[in-house]
């Protein structure tokens, strides 16, 4: 009974979200009608439920039934967890086709980071196809909350979150990852099918395309 109720609620939610997606949400919201609001009443309790004892017995039956079901536990160190493709683990700094750090030190990730865990110092790039590059790029992996907003903010797809989740260290300093370490993580994870390079554009503006000495845009979305 409870499950059925749950399902109904979920269906309702889906309906609402679809309703909001449709067309301009603003106009629809203003035209929201009374019947669009779903009121949930406290369910009436019959004599049977009010007596509690049957419910208690039902509960006991439920737990007993589960005791004989197969556990759903994944035994972690022996069995690797099956992570979803968009899992947000340790960061990496991508390289371009020439193996240089892709980051242009725009500091948008540092700006958007809600945990203030990214510390970048930028400088004049030694390369012809871009103006700026990071001389220091540090992420405090302990401070990070793995929200993935840096990934979204990055205009050149340089910072990405990988599926590495087993992050360990014996000191806090050890878990402040610098530029080289983040690039090494890229080298380690770029061939992992779980961590596709999510690059779409990859180069910094058309300037890079014309001035030569440039990395061709990597457009592959798979690895």
């Amino acid at each position, binding site marked *: 009974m409870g499950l059925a109720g749950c399902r109904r609620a979920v269906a309702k939610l889906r309906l609402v979200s679809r309703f909001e997606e449709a067309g301009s949400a603003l106009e629809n919201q203003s035209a929201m009608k009374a019947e669009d609001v779903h009121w949930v009443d406290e369910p009436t309790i019959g004599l049977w439920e009010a007596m509690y004892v049957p419910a208690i017995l039902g509960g006991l039956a439920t737990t007993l039934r589960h005791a004989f079901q197969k556990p759903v536990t994944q035994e972690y160190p022996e069995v690797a967890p099956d992570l979803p493709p968009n899992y947000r683990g340790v960061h990496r700094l991508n390289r371009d086709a020439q193996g240089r750090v892709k980051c242009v*030190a*725009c500091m948008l990730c540092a700006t958007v980071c809600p945990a203030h865990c990214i510390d970048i110092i930028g400088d004049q790039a030694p390369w012809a196809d871009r*103006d700026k590059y990071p001389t220091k790029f540090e992420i405090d992996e302990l401070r990070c909350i793995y929200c993935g907003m840096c990934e979204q903010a990055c205009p050149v797809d340089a910072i990405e979150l990988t599926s590495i989740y087993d992050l360990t260290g014996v000191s806090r300093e050890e878990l402040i990852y610098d530029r080289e370490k983040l690039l090494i993580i890229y080298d380690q994870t770029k061939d992992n099918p779980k961590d596709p390079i999510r690059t779409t554009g990859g180069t910094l503006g058309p*300037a890079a395309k*014309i001035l030569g000495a440039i990395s061709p845009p990597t457009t592959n979305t798979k690895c």
Partner: protein
Amino acid sequence: MAIVTINGQDVEIGDNERLNVIQAAKRIGVEIPHYCWHPALSVVASCRMCLVELGEKKPDGSVSMQPKLAPACQMPAKHGTVVVTDSTKVKQAQATNLEYLLLNHPLDCPTCDQAGECFLQDYSYRFGRSASRMEEPKILRADKPSIGDQITLFTDRCVMCTRCVRFTRELSGTSELQVINRGALAEIDIYPGQPCNNKLAGNVVDLCPVGALCSKDFLYKQRVWWLKTRESVCPNCSTGCSITVDQNEEHVYRLRPRSNPQAQGHFMCDEGRFGFKYVHAAERLTRPAIKNESVSTNGNGEVAPDWSRILGRVRQVFSQHTEEDPNGVAAIFSPWMTCEDAYLLASWLRSLSPAVRLALGPIPIVGEDDLYPKDWRGEPVQPPRFVIRAEKCPNRRGVEAVLKHFQQAEVEIGALFDDARAGKLHAAQVVHPGPGGWLNGDQITALARVPFLVVQGLLKSDLSDAAQVVLPGASFAEKDGTFVNHAGLAQMIKRSIRCPAEGYTDARIFMELAGHTGLFNARLLRQEMAREIPHFAAFAAGDLGDQGVRLDASVASQEVAAR
């Protein structure tokens, strides 16, 4: 009284005012976007961003509009002018013009220093269209990092507003910058081998509405949206340019001029713009110390700051010497001190004894006043529009006025040094919250003979080495106060960052020396000074506003009139 109608709203314009339509519209909060127009520069109407519908109200009440859009910057706001800035026609023109300006723009905002304070970004967001219809490859032009010692040019970001070119022609008169090529290939450039290195060159960075001209000093140091801004006054010469101090996390990254017709206009010189570096110098004094005394350390082996003990000792020695021989006690004020600091120090020493001598230290004069614009020979053109003063200190007049109030007869600083050399001074306090190189070697040797020399300053120097007691002070960015410029204009400086390490502000040091309780409040102290010293009567409000107040109205503002 002229009445201009802007978007159906009437704007009154005074008889003596000469405004264009952009300025008139700004009065009622209507923003007309513009790139090439700048209040201090001539009008060229080349960017076409400020196109609006213009018309005229006839005496009979009928309105006749011009058939085509016209640039608002070029249109004087005269009586009967009718302006429409929000019609579809205008909006379309703005959007199309922005699309055109962005045709060859590299859109490298992520690496552009201007991002965040860029008018291309702002106007595109507010007036532009979201997508470009450009299909051809963009014309890309090489950057010109050698365009000047302090400035660099990202040629492809330029929108050809020519503000920089006009600045070097009209304000500095040096005319280094020019436009080369024509049409879509037009670029800003210098004459071969003649980089833009005049003393006002940094202003073209501020003038540039986009990220084309950037300051090499600030390049890639910070994103501008991280900077916190406070109004202040440039301490590098007696012009007293109004500036803003931009800092992030207790580090000053740049100074920018702030428009103030009372003080200097819209600009500032490079000397002032880049002359704040001593604030973060490695030689900054960070902790109070008494010479030849072992320092106590805390548990971590660090030297514990011992302000109260050291200040107590200074107070005790000074009062002891004052009792014995008040003539042997003196204080040397630096023209970098704020009026408030000078007032606090003077009132403390005066409270010890009226015979204590207070002297204003040497005034640094370097060369002659540097007047701009120059003609092609390098001679100043009359009337000058910008002056870099030879008097390289911000507050000579303020400190002088304070000292004059406390002692009628001025104490000759030379005589004081002679006394020191002759061993007649027993205790002296030298306060210098400014850059190094203030006193020369002779003067320092003379002061080194004072048995109890207290030096309060920013930087470690021969002077601080000669001192018995060293007190770290606060630079102009670290304290509240008032500077009085060459023309008697008093302007507030505001605290942007904290003193380094265990430093105290100067005012706090003086208050503790005088045994005052409570916190230093510049506003209240200014009000007290206004009551005590007639010269500072204009301080009565406590707050001097953005533009400052004139202490002496009779110190005529010929320059302002000329400007």
